[in-house]
């Protein structure tokens, strides 16, 4: 996510939009949107079996490429993207899109390089992979807690903040009521449906996001006067009130360049190539939210197809968010690009700058709501029971209201809510996966599948409460740099984890001690820089820069590069100095060993290693084989579920049975064993690809990469 030019909007202060801004048609559009999403969620509940670990957390590994691809896109693009990318475009030009296009390359890397390893290892969560690869418990727990921390304190908070800004700006609703209602609706299908519901609804929400955002893009281009008008107008988008002695308020010279000066600019090009790639690799290749979606795919080809779809979709944020943000600056320079702290405080409550309101401003000003200022007439009439709006008469001095009215603003509301909800549900589900599979199973190693399912669902509800608790924090952050700090948390904590995953996957010699000390020292150094950043906040535009040299002159992208190198040196050094990893820690857990045959005995030993007694080992091995067969049989048919639910009805009250079905859990079987390990199929067979389709997918990869290289070269 791009770090914008530090603005926070206190949601309690509404900048001059006193009238209720949604009319009936907008409300209707919103209601239709919610019903659509709920319908998709409920349908997906029918479709998949969600009472097993695989079924709930990995959608039964049965997803085809299009839900995988759209879910990757929707989980990534949250409301923070709309606000952040548009705001960065308004404030600093197109450089922020480097994050998006870097992400394109990384998601392809995931599909082709990392995913075969994860599939071969048969894991559900990323900490689990580290545990298998390095052994021991400390890295797994460390990473699990770190991930949960990052999710709760960076991802959830940023999306809640951006969503709250938008809801307050546009809807003027009570923020608590709005958020609680939204979260309850989405929690309904997330808790009951698991990953399958989340992915299918993400697909629907991607469609809505694309339709809405692309139409707003069309409107904004029409308004500003076309492509050339954008290119030329941006340089002159200067607010009328500014300090003439400084450059505050003046748009950057290199606004339309991606690769900027290595020393003096806000995003130096070596930093973009190196310093951005490593955290980006963490996000796309070793973050639970993203990898879990790819793991849910039917087979490797579908996962690659999903990666390709997501990569193609990642081209769009440039056109949907960055350029409209720049257009917003051209159209409303005094508000979006305010240069004077007093003006800024008046406009959006933050003296640093108001670029964050760029997108919201476009939605509110460009899209007519049906309530127009006095002096403008809008006519329409009912034609066969449909309201047909006609042209609004142009009022002098205001932008032309376009012909279509009403409903569009509702659509944009739906878009923002879709972005917010899709990201939040994905984060909820993945956090729940990590908590259940890594932390809970560590505390209670013999937990039955039933218990894990229950815990998984409960944790989602806990996260809903946590999300609501972020709202008072958001409201209290007036004028503060809180959310910039929060974003910097991820920038400084991601590189060490990324390097550990990289060395773990692609170098057979990495061992547990190397990984642990690399992680520890890397996070320590990152934490030190983070503390320095908090103590010496970056100065406002017109203030003098009095920070210590190490903070002032070392750009955070360069620091990220240095941190990665440091972690790499520590990992390599300590690994070479200590003993080699054991063969079962390498077999089918690295790139070079992903085709290794699975040894049944070592597999069974590893999965029951938490269960201490030797007799139980044999028993559960047999039980596993039985359960595995039962799982296979159960996994397919709807009929099986009906039969089992019918059986449960006979022995329990109907209400309980209905509740169980709704929650997607089957009646607790007597003598439930520990959940069987993920099917240890021969990795070679699970990594097998139909050669013809493999050809097609690889060719598509070359095309996608060429397009990415072209657009990066075009805007360089």
């Amino acid at each position, binding site marked *: 996510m791009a770090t914008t030019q530090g603005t926070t909007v206190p949601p309690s202060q509404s900048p001059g939009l006193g009238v209720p801004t949604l009319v009936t048609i907008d409300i209707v559009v919103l209601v239709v949107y919610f019903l659509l999403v709920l319908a998709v969620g409920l349908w997906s509940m029918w479709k998949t079996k969600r009472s097993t670990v695989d079924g709930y957390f990995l959608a039964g590994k049965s997803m085809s490429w299009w839900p995988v691809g759209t879910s990757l896109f929707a989980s990534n693009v949250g409301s923070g993207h709309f606000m952040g990318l548009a705001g960065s475009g308004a404030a600093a030009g197109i450089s922020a899109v480097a994050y998006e296009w870097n992400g394109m390359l990384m998601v392809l890397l995931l599909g082709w390089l990392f995913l075969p390893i994860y599939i071969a290892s048969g894991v559900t969560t990323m900490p689990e992979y580290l545990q298998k690869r390095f052994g021991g418990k400390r890295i797994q727990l460390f990473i699990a807690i770190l991930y949960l921390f990052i999710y709760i304190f960076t991802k959830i908070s940023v999306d809640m903040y951006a969503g709250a800004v938008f809801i307050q700006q546009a809807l003027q609703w009570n923020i608590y009521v709005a958020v609680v209602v939204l979260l309850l609706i989405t929690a309904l299908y997330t808790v009951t449906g698991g990953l399958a519901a989340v992915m299918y609804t993400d697909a629907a929400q991607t469609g809505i996001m694309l339709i809405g955002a692309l139409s707003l893009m069309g409107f904004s281009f029409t308004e500003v006067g076309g492509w050339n008008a954008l290119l030329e107008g941006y340089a002159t988008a200067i607010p009328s009130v500014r300090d003439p002695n400084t450059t505050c308020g003046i748009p950057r010279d290199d606004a339309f360049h991606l690769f900027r000066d290595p020393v003096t600019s806000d995003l130096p090009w070596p930093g973009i190539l190196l310093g951005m790639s490593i955290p980006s690799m963490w996000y796309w290749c070793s973050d639970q939210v993203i990898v879990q979606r790819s793991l849910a795919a039917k087979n490797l080809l579908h996962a690659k197809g999903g990666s390709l779809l997501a990569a193609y979709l990642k081209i769009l944020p440039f056109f949907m968010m960055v350029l409209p943000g720049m257009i917003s600056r051209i159209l409303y320079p005094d508000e979006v690009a305010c240069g004077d702290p007093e003006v800024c405080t008046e406009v959006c409550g933050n003296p640093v700058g108001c670029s964050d309101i760029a997108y919201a401003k476009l939605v509110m000003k460009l899209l007519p709501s049906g309530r127009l200022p006095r002096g403008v007439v809008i006519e329409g009439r009912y034609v066969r029971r449909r309201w047909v709006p006609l042209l609004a008469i142009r009022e002098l001095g205001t932008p032309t209201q376009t012909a279509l009215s009403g409903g569009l603003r509702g659509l944009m509301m739906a878009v923002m809510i879709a972005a917010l909800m899709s990201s939040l549900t994905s984060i909820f589900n993945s956090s729940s996966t990590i908590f259940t599979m890594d932390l809970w199973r560590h505390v209670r190693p013999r937990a039955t599948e039933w218990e894990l399912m229950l815990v998984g669902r409960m944790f989602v509800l806990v996260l809903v409460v946590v999300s609501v608790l972020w709202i008072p924090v958001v409201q209290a952050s007036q004028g503060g740099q809180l959310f910039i700090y929060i974003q910097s948390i991820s920038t400084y904590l991601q590189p060490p984890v990324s390097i550990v995953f990289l060395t773990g996957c692609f170098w057979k010699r990495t061992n547990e001690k190397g990984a642990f000390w690399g992680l520890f020292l890397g996070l320590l150094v990152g934490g030190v820089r983070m503390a320095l950043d908090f103590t010496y906040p970056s100065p406002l535009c017109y203030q003098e820069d009095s920070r210590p040299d190490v903070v002032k002159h070392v750009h955070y992208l360069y620091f990220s590069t240095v941190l990665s190198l440091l972690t790499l040196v520590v990992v390599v050094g300590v690994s070479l100095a200590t003993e080699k990893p054991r063969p079962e820690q390498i077999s089918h857990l690295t790139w070079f060993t992903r085709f290794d045959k699975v040894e049944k005995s070592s597999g069974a030993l590893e999965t029951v290693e938490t269960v201490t007694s030797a007799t139980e080992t044999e028993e559960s091995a047999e039980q596993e084989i039985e359960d595995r067969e039962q799982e296979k049989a159960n996994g397919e048919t709807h009929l099986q579920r009906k039969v089992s639910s019918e059986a449960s009805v006979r022995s329990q009250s109907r209400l309980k049975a209905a509740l169980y079905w709704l929650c997607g859990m089957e009646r607790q079987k007597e003598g439930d064993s520990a959940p069987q390990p993920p099917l240890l199929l021969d990795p070679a067979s699970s990594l097998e690809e139909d050669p013809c389709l493999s*050809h097609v997918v690889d060719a598509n990869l*070359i095309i996608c990469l060429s397009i990415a290289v072209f657009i990066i070269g*075009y805007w360089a």
Partner: protein
Amino acid sequence: MGRATTGILWLMLTLGVVTAQIGKVDRTLPQWLTGIIAVGVFLFLIFVAFLVNKAWCQDSRLETKECECVETTGYAKTRDNYNTSLDTVMNGDDEGAYENMALESVEDKATAM
């Protein structure tokens, strides 16, 4: 040679036109041209890597039955079954020196039907 000179002169003219603009970061080449050049370089690199991979895989298959030919990021991945079938078709005269009956039989065994 004349064409090259013309090309260079044309480029210099564009340079001259572009540098006449004051206050903007100079673009020495039009944007679409930098894009095309970048794509060209990229495809060339892919081509080179593909050739290297084919040459390397050919050598290593003589020793081992299973060829874990792995190319680096973004290049077409070759697989055992598909690789052998493709190569039996594609191996023309240029690689004929390496082909022998032993290799043929190895390929037959490795092909998973």
